[in-house]
């Protein structure tokens, strides 16, 4: 994506990776207090090249190459934020965020509450997450439950280039800490982004979105599973079934009103994510939908996700990750009641 020469104006076909790169560029341009920091984010441009070229254009003081020290990176970012900066930290991989977990959960999430609102920490933690890249544990994990479970953090994840471009800018502007999860297996997916559109024209950061209307069954996903949802809906349509698809976009806070509205019409719900289903986001969603839409449900809420194991061997990951077959199977089950 680094080699893609994109005019920085007008409507462009961009990959998610390039959209993130341009979104971060805009954030750096818009506010001199914005800093990027992380391992290899500067000269190398990041392990996935998301920050490619930014140090060259904004300097070593705005785009910092830090030592290999996740706890130190996040802790230092907190200190910077306490004094008015808006740091954006890159964790190279999902599993690499765990060495910083102490700082994220014990300091970043709690400081505003602890200080009774006197300290705000506008820190963004960017984490490429999810599997499907032929790698193993540490490099393919879905840590969203840990972060979404922690009050004080907000957790969002884009699934399209347009969302990537705007959501990363909105996250930087948010006065709360935001864990920004990037579906790394989708970095190269392309879509149109209007680079002239102001951030204010984008949808709210913490809103979910129905992105395909349907009548028979609601299917909810986010991040890397949005593509799976699309494929599932196409295949279901061939069988004469109309799926309504929802992209959650935000995992904390959850915006479930559009899901309730949808389920009240379709009577069926399937929730899809790569994270293990055991106590995962789908468990919370199922509980809330059951409470809110009990009289509308034609079947129990079905869940498709990772199994209750560590992330498996790379040659087995296709069995671990939700795919078209498993989603359609779950849809079928909602019709079996």
């Amino acid at each position, binding site marked *: 994506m680094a080699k893609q020469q994109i005019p920085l104006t007008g409507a462009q076909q961009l990959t998610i990776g390039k959209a993130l790169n341009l979104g971060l560029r805009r954030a750096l341009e818009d506010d001199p207090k914005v800093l990027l920091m992380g391992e290899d984010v500067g000269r190398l441009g990041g392990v996935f090249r998301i920050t490619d070229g930014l140090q060259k254009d904004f300097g*070593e*003081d705005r785009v*910092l190459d*830090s*030592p290999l*020290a996740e*706890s*130190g990176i*996040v*802790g*230092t*970012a*907190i*200190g*910077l*934020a*306490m*004094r*008015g*900066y808006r740091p954006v930290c890159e964790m190279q991989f999902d599993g690499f965020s765990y*060495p910083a977990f*102490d*700082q994220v959960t*014990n*300091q970043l999430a709690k400081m*505003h*509450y*602890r*200080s*009774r*609102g*006197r*300290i*705000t*920490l*506008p820190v963004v933690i960017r984490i490429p997450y999810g599997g499907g890249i032929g790698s193993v544990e540490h490099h393919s994990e879905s840590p969203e439950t840990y972060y979404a479970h922690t*009050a*004080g953090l*907000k957790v969002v994840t884009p699934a399209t280039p347009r969302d990537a471009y705007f959501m990363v800018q909105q996250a930087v502007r*948010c*006065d*709360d800490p935001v864990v920004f999860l990037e579906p790394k297996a989708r970095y190269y997916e392309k879509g149109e982004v209007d680079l002239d559109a102001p951030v204010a024209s984008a949808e*709210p950061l*913490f*809103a979910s979105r129905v992105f395909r209307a349907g009548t028979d069954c609601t299917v909810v996903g986010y991040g890397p599973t949005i593509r799976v949802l699309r494929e599932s809906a196409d295949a279901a349509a061939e069988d004469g079934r109309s799926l309504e698809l929802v992209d959650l976009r935000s995992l904390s*806070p*959850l*915006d*479930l*009103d559009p899901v309730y509205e949808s389920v009240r019409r379709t009577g069926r719900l399937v929730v899809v994510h790569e994270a293990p289903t055991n106590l995962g986001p789908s468990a919370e969603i199922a509980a*809330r939908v059951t*409470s*809110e839409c*009990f*009289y509308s449900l034609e079947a129990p809420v079905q869940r498709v996700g990772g199994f209750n194991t560590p992330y498996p061997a790379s040659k087995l990951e296709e069995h671990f990750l939700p795919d078209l077959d498993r989603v359609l199977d779950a849809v079928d089950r909602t019709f079996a009641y």
Partner: protein
Amino acid sequence: MPTSTSAPRRRRRPPTNPAADDAQLLAFYRQMVLVRRFEERAARAYTEARIGGYCHLNLGEEATVAGLAAALDPTDYLFATYREHGYALARGIAPERVMAELYGRTDGVSGGWGGSMHMFDADTRFMGGYGIVGGQVPLATGAALAIEYRGGGEAVVCLLGDGTTNIGAFHESLNLAALWHLPIVYVIVNNGLGMGTTVEQASAEPELHRRAAAYRMDSARVDGNDPTAVYDAVRTALAGARAGRPYLLETVSGRLKGHSVVDPAKYRSRAEAAALAAADPVAAYAVRLHGAGLLTDELIAEIDADATATVAAAADFAEHSPHPDVSTLFDHTYATPVPNDARRLPGEPLFPVPANGVPA
């Protein structure tokens, strides 16, 4: 921020604190006695169940508190540990606000939400106690980086205990500070014990200040029972830090009581406890000033009476300050609005059933 290859910056200004004069020597004593009486009063309030949770006292650390705090400029930032009451007082936070915080009351430094371990006061640039070992070390490093960005002559002083020198974040932070020439002084308050584990049992290099060598950082060890020695050492360290040379200072003092108020310190022998009491820094410093003609018996009694009256008033103030209201439970979890924020109080149903029993 200088890049990793750039030279340290020029000193931005000379140290502003003069060498301790007689007035300062007496001020150290007043400060030490105030901390001593305050902590004794806090321990009593704890046993009276006025203070809950955990409560770590600065008893035995008074000389370090007094010397360190006096060496800071008002614009410097101080990050503390969970053993921070004395530093909060010495930084200029009113004793009644510190005591009220211990009592968990709304007039406390943190509105009753911080308690013993999480005091925070932006006005005095007291950037918090931290309830987890070493949590503050990377944060202080970041605050120093912010000073570097903004420009200006402030510095950060980051307190930590001897046990903290064994956690990863300590090393990550010192490396960053040295690499980026940050205006920060890390002060290891070495009281010889991490809870009940001695420094020698826990640290392969028990001369903790020597760890700075791994980062080509200046360092020193100083007698933490001598306020003037601490004062001078912190001034020297701060001068270096303001010139872009971070510093690791180790102060050595005793911990007269247990790790926290509830710790009977049974791991310490009777002889060890007796030796600690005999080396009591407050008493030793009084003898020293007395010998120098700066303190008289009358003045000792007067200072003691002043401190006792101050902490009694602080305890009375704390006693009469209101508890936080339960309606504030949900405040400040986030800085920005949270869609669908439920704000349910404990015991309220997750999804209230409408009066007619039928959801909309």
